């Protein structure tokens, strides 16, 4: 089969590799009908997240049709159309039973290594380093789905691939980011980063009834998409984020702040972001946390910081004293995808939201490596790439 294979930093190729096979009675194999490039794939593309190996198949946003099931799989049958969440869930462990699917205790097959690095292992993820199990990703023609009975989202016939695909990651990720804020009708929610997850967080905050939602980015195409949903926008290259947010909140700052940027914050005119860039290039710091610093500074006392943006390792100069004295609450984590997807599927079916709005580019799988460059460099006003194997 054809698959997008990671060969090293910024080196992804469309290779021909052996088809996946059932390895465990709980497995299923799907024929991938649609997949997408996620913003967090770019962290792997740039090799900022450790433990990728040459030959790994990348991709964790995918859906398709079941073509084969293991002997222990009874809830799925050939021909079923499903979205695959990026987190692999056993559905039986303590964390899965609590709904903390991204912390599944059984799906990470490299648990010993992950225990050493994280203290306690997190769930297995598709196409996202050997620290999360080293599973093959879904930017491919076929995918093996471990623990298939727990690791799928049924797709109603009424939804197209374009409407359903993002149930596997970015829609529930944006949703969880907003839910973690416990949004009240009086809240101002500030969202840093108007990429795909940011766009979903903006719409989730609006659906959940925030008084005002503010989107912060520098790219006009992203800001126009944010405005389309009813967000107030701040171009951080044109104006001070802190001053504008204080103006919008009578000097008090937003109650809720969401970081949809993560470890590759753009180097702005701020000295700290330039220092981060130098330190990251010289391996003195793994992540560039400018957004975290700015959120801590501008957030209203007793506010909430929600962090769906991916961080990979060590961050420097975090003003923790400021956070402590302001009594801020931090909520973060990989998304517990399946905790939200039944509700979100209903909301798509009812027409509250149509996540396909975010797709700006569609290409064949073979064109995927080139689309990584397009997405990375924000060429051609690219916000979200959907790939068709």
């Amino acid at each position, binding site marked *: 089969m054809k698959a997008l294979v990671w060969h090293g930093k910024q080196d992804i190729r469309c290779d021909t590799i052996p088809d996946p096979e059932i390895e465990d009675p709980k497995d299923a194999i799907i024929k991938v009908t649609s997949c997408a490039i996620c913003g967090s794939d770019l962290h792997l593309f740039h090799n900022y997240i450790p433990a990728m190996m040459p030959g790994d198949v990348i991709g964790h946003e995918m859906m398709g049709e079941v073509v084969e099931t293991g002997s222990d799989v009874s809830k799925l049958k050939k021909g079923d159309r499903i979205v695959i969440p990026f987190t692999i869930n056993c559905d039986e462990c303590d964390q899965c039973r609590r709904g903390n699917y991204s912390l599944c205790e059984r799906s990470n097959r490299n648990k010993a290594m992950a225990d050493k690095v994280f203290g306690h292992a997190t769930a297995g993820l598709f196409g996202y380093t050997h620290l999360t199990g080293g599973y093959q990703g879904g930017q491919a023609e076929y995918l093996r789905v471990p623990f298939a009975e727990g690791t799928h989202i049924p797709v109603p016939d009424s939804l197209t691939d374009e409407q359903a695909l993002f149930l596997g990651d970015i829609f529930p990720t944006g949703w969880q980011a907003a839910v973690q804020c416990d949004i009240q009708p009086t809240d101002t929610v500030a969202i840093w980063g108007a990429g795909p997850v940011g766009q979903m967080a903006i719409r989730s905050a609006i659906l959940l009834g925030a008084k005002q939602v503010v989107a912060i980015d520098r790219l006009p195409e992203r800001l126009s998409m944010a405005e389309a*949903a009813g967000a107030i926008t701040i171009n951080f290259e044109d104006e001070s984020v802190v001053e504008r947010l204080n103006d919008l909140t009578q000097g008090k700052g937003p109650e809720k702040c969401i970081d949809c940027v993560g470890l590759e914050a753009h180097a702005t005119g701020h000295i700290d972001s330039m220092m981060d860039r130098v330190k990251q290039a010289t391996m003195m710091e793994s992540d560039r946390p400018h957004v975290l610093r700015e959120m801590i500074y501008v957030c209203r006392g007793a506010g909430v910081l929600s962090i769906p943006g991916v961080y990979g390792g060590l961050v420097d100069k975090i003003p923790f004293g400021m956070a402590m004295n302001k009594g801020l609450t931090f909520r973060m984590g990989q998304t517990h995808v399946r905790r939200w997807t039944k509700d979100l599927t209903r909301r798509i079916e009812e027409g509250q939201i149509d996540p396909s*709005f975010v797709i700006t580019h569609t290409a064949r799988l073979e064109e995927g490596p080139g689309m990584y460059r397009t997405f990375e460099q924000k060429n051609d006003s690219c916000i979200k790439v959907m790939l068709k194997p």
Partner: protein
Amino acid sequence: MNIASTLVTSRPDRSLTLTDRVARGLGWFSLGLGLAEIVAPGKLGRALGLEGKETLLRAYGGREIGAGIWALSDTPAPAIWARVAGDIVDLGTLAAGLRGGDDSQRRNAFIALAAVGGITLVDLLTAMSLSAETTENKGETGRDYSDRSGFPGGADKARGAARDFKTPAEYRSTPVEEPKRVSGELEPA
């Protein structure tokens, strides 16, 4: 299409172009050369007729290491242009070496001059190619997506449409009751 853009050799099934690979090679070369200039400036100086200029060579070494690290980052184009500028400085310094020293040193300086001339050409073509790649692939920027609300019923109708959602207990943080008001204004305790 100019000579620089022909070096890009962009293929949709590969994310790295030939130019990217050459830029990385130049980055590693920069690191190696920089290290040599910092660790053994005396030896290099004697060989090239630049005796007494060890401090200058060490400074050049620092410059090379900086350019090397930058060239190996995900935005190598400015680093390769910086290398072109550095090459010109190096050529000037080596030309000075041609005027002094013995025959052997002048011969070495001439060989080094020719080598740096060759590297300068590679640097220049790579820098031009990286810049061409950036320009040619840019496409239409700033496209207007203001017709993409994502709300089939309209943005106004969407606001608060999911208020039926019950926030799980572990994510609740806001007091249910509104804070008490005194004389219409909130007052600190």
